[in-house]
Structures are given as structure tokens and as C-alpha cells.
């Protein structure tokens, strides 16, 4: 069962860990009364494999923001297979596409232990009404989600298996905090395959080929790209010359 507790947590200075920080301009003095949007924030802990919400769940008019950990958002294709829509990570907003909808169109499962903040959308809209700048930023956030799915589609549309994998690795690497070479890879090969429209074995084969060439280092649920330029060329569609070409 999901454990729900109130947030902000005692002991952490106000606004310090607030996920709405980028949106909210109410950085008042520490002893000022908390705005309502802060008072009604909840925090849930998800264990690996637990659902945040399921496919076709009724929408509860909540917005979810990941504080730590990774989720996978999936949908079932017409053929019954799992298709991955996205792998939201820390700081990502989840469930925006379901705003104003009766039912969830995707399900979201924790890939590792996660902490997720829940904000009632009604409270959020009060904040947005009060601060035009916050409204703009929220609009940009939604717009960014559109662009991200379109980028995903573009990746699926063109390019070979290797190209897609290279693009995927670069994209994940770009999400790592600046100055850190190691990026998280919390998902399984099967999940990557379901995200890229490939089979798990194809993903494994190409990843080990990249590792054999020293362009990719795999670790415990993480990876780094020692030769980012080479992977960049692959992502742009430059073919890999021997010995596994065509594999």
C-alpha cells in the first residue's frame, strides 16, 4: 500500500525541497503562514513495481511530481503488448495528459523506490490564477510534454535500431546532472525495447557491441558514455563499420 504523509516535511526549511519552486513566487519569510497549495501537498513512497496509477483508473484531479526515483508510463498496444510512453525521472510531472479527462490513458509503475509529491490541481490553478508568470511556466511545461512525445515519434519513425539506441542513450545521458558522467538506467532491456519499438535481444546485442568498443560503460543501474562523439555520430545515422555491421 502507498504510504501517504503530509509534506512539507518537518525539519526541512520551507520551500527548500518544494517541487513547485520553479512555478511559485511566494518565497515568504520562514515564519509566514504557508499558502494553501503547500498545506495540501502530500508525499507518497512507492516501492519497486508499485503502481502510481493504473490504466483506465478514474482521474483524481491530482498532479504528480517525482521527487526521487524513476517511473515508467506504459500503455497497451492494440496487439496487447506493452508500449512504453515515457520514463519520467526526478522533477518530472506525471499525469498531465489526463487533466480534464475522465480516465487515465496510461499506467505508471515505479522502476525503483520512488518518492512522489501529489498536488491537487484545484489548488494549483489558484496559484496559477494569482501569478501570471506561473501560468506561463505551466503552459510551457505542457507544451514541452507535447514536444517530447513528438521527438519520441520522430525517433521511432526514422532510423535503424542502432540509431534509436544511440539516440536513447544520449537522451538519458543529457538528463544526468551537470558534471556527472554517470547517468541512471533504471529500466530493463525489455523496457528499453518497448520504448524504442525493438526487441529486448536487439537492445542487448547493440549495447554489448557499444560496450565492446569502449563507447559505453555499464554499471549497476547506470551507464556512462566515454566517447560521446562516436555515439553522437551513430545517432545521426553514420553506419557502424565492421565487425558487427548488419547484426
Amino acid at each position, binding site marked *: 500500500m502507498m504510504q501517504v504523509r503530509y509534506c512539507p516535511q518537518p525539519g526541512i526549511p520551507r520551500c527548500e525541497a518544494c517541487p513547485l519552486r520553479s512555478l511559485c513566487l511566494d518565497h515568504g519569510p520562514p515564519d509566514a503562514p504557508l499558502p494553501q497549495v503547500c498545506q495540501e501537498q502530500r508525499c507518497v513512497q512507492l516501492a519497486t513495481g508499485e503502481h502510481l496509477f493504473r490504466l483506465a483508473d478514474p482521474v483524481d484531479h491530482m498532479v504528480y511530481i517525482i521527487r526521487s526515483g524513476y517511473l515508467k508510463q506504459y500503455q497497451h498496444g492494440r496487439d496487447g503488448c506493452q508500449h512504453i510512453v515515457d520514463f519520467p525521472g526526478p522533477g518530472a510531472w506525471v499525469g498531465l495528459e489526463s487533466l480534464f479527462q475522465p480516465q487515465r490513458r496510461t499506467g505508471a509503475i515505479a522502476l525503483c523506490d520512488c518518492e512522489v509529491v501529489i498536488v491537487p490541481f484545484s489548488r494549483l490553478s489558484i496559484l496559477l490564477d494569482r501569478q501570471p508568470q506561473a501560468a506561463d511556466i505551466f503552459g510551457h511545461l505542457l*507544451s514541452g510534454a507535447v514536444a517530447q512525445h*513528438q521527438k519520441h515519434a520522430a525517433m521511432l519513425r526514422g532510423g535503424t535500431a542502432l540509431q534509436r539506441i544511440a539516440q536513447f542513450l544520449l537522451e538519458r545521458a543529457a538528463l544526468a546532472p551537470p558534471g556527472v558522467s554517470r547517468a541512471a538506467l533504471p529500466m530493463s532491456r525489455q523496457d528499453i525495447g*518497448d520504448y524504442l519499438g525493438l526487441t529486448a535481444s536487439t537492445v542487448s546485442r547493440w549495447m554489448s557491441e557499444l560496450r565492446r568498443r569502449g563507447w559505453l560503460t555499464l554499471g549497476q543501474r547506470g551507464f556512462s558514455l566515454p566517447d560521446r562523439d562516436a555515439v553522437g555520430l551513430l545517432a545521426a545515422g553514420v553506419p557502424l563499420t565492421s565487425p558487427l555491421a548488419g547484426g
Partner: protein
Amino acid sequence: MSYKTILVHADHAPNAAARYELACLLAASQETHLVGTALTGLNLDCYRDAIAYGGMLSPQDAQAIHDYSREALAEFTAHAQRAGVSHEVRMSDDDAESGLVLQARYADLMVLSQSEPAAVPGAPPAQGGGAAAGHARRAGGGRGAAVAGGRAAGRPAGDGRLRPPALARNRAGRGHPARAAIDDSSRIHGALKKAVMAIQSDRSNCERCIHFHLCRDTAPHDQVAGRRLRVRRHAALYRAGEAVGNSLYSIRSGSFKLVLPQAGGGQVNGFALAPQFLGLNALGAATHMFSAIALEDSEVCWITWDRHAIRGRRQPLQRSALYAMLADEIRRAEQAALQLHHTQAGQRLAELMLSLSRTNRDNGYSPVRLRLPMSRSDIASYIGVSAECVSRVLDRFRRAGLVELCRRELTLLDQPALQQLASGKAAA
């Protein structure tokens, strides 16, 4: 059957008087309201061409052109008064063909004359027409300038054989390879950005726009928070890499494809048909990710997203409706990506047809009869196969009795079978 409204074209052609007589006669016998309409020829293209090649028509020139039309209307009024029928006059800034066609929709009968090419241009006023033509010449020559000048000077008189130069030019251009047209479009685009008109809700049919709830009451008076742009076929509304500049576009008519630039030509990443929005993926982004290329002559409302401008722009669209629209767009994009997990061309094509059908239905059109404004190669690029493959699969669908395709008119004959096909359960 009685006619309630009769429309009559007013101009300076020699046979205009006979035309008015006939219209008055008809009106008197039927107790009909008579509308005399004069078209100045100053349509949007005229402004656009003038800007593209330098400068606008001077107010004096525009005044002269308007006076010229007003004279024709005075002539009509005299006739109508003599016949003693109820009448009104109308003058619009448009070319004769599109203006009359538009206004004919609101009349029961339209009275026109046959063309008399030898007699036509009917001596435009030396001062007005001459000034306009001279202005166009000064503006730097070239085809566009000649069009602007020619239209302003002589065209308003042409009744009967109604073919403004812009239309003729369009026909001629149809044979050109698309690529040349696209290369040409950056220049057109530059001009477009300026050739815009403020929208007044009472004049621009805004009440009929399904997105009117977004714009209503967002700007003072009758203005709504946008401007209107016309985009020619194959021209770009915006290009990948261009600054977004707080712009959002609502397609009023026509359709666009979204193209991701790539080494070997672009990859078509989506289609947007009226009344969808363009630019929803770029709010707050620095540059556009895709180019939006018109698949046919199209018209868009250009909504500027500038909080710091005048009061009306502070909230250019109703906020919650905008969020709903964005959420909708996220789902659409998500769906488009998921569709690509299907591996077979037939599956993807069936899915595309079904999604177009869904969009049509959501917009209140027929879910069965669709128009495909995009070419086969656009479809091929969109679903990630070759153009030959698209033709082959379409042919297979047709032979299996799933669809009927006549040029660009697509009829879905067997939707359940298409659903089956899209789910990969049946082979076509």
C-alpha cells in the same frame, strides 16, 4: 419560388447598366431586396505583394481605388432608385472572383455579365490607377509588383471572366517541383509575417470558429487577440530553427504538415488540419522543432503570446481552455508515437486513416468520408515507409473493399475491418 435577396456586381464595364436594369426588373417582379456589390481588387495578396517588393499602397492611391468603386455603386443606386426597389450597396476589399463567390453564399441569385474582353478595363481613373501602377513599378519590378499594380489599376472592372492574376499564377505554378516552391517559400514567409490583418470578430466569422471560446473577451472592442495570415500551398508558416516569438496558430482553413529537417530531405512528423492548432509544442521554447508547410492554400489565426503587450494580450486565450487543449495535444502526440510500434505498413496506414477519421468526427465532420490533403510521399514519410509501399498498400485496401479512394477523397467502407487490421489481428 421567390428570391429574397439578389446580388448584382457593380463595376464600370460598358454593359453594367444593362446588368442593373435586369436586376431591378427581377427585383421589382419578386419584391426582392437588391444588393449592389463592388469589389476594389485590394485583396490580401495585393498588400502582401506590395510589402514583399517594398512599401504599401499610399493612402491617396487606396483612396482613389475606393472612390472608383464608389462611383460604380452610385451608378447602381441611381438605377435602383429609379426602379423603386429596396436596395443597399456593399463595397469590399477583395478581388472580383473570391469576393463575389463569398457574397453569393448569402444571396439567392447573383447577376453577372458576360465578359467583353475588348471593352473591359473600362478606363480606370487616370489618377488612381496610374498612381497605383506607378507605385508598383517604383516598388522594384518583378512579378509580384506587376500583379499588385495590375490588380489595383485594371482588375476591378473585369466581370464575367473572373480570373485574377494570382489565381492564374497559381495554376501555372502547380507544375513546378514542390522543392522549388519550398525553397522559394522563405522569401514568401518573410513577407507573410508582415502581411497580416487585425481580426475583428464581427467581420471575420469568429462566431463560427470552434475555438471562439478561447479568444472571446480577451481584447477590447470587437477585436480578438489575433491576426489572420494566408499561407500559400507549399509555403512555410514557420521553419524549424526559427525563433518561436510567443506565437500560436489556429488553422481556420486548409492543412499543414510538420516536417523535421533531416539530411536526406525532411521527415514528415505529423499533419494538422483545420481547426487544429499549430505551435502548441513550442510554447516557451526558443526555436521551432518542425517546419509547418501548407499542403494547400490555407488561412491561420496568428495569436501572439505576449504578456507584456497591451492589456488585451495579457491573457490571449482563456487559460483553462488552453490547458485542456494542451493536454489533448499531449495525448495526440503520445498516440502518434505509440502507433509507430506497429511494424507493418498496412497496420500503420490503417491507424492513420482511423485517427484522421476520429479527428474528423471530433470536429463534427463525417467519420467515413475524408479528404486527404497530403501527398502519397507525405504519407509514406509519416508512416516511415516508401511511397511505392503506400500506393501498394492503398491498392490492397481498395481491392479488399476496405476503402474507396478517388483522387484525394477517401471513403472508409469497412471501419471494423480497418480496426482489426490496425490491431494486427488480420492481414489485409
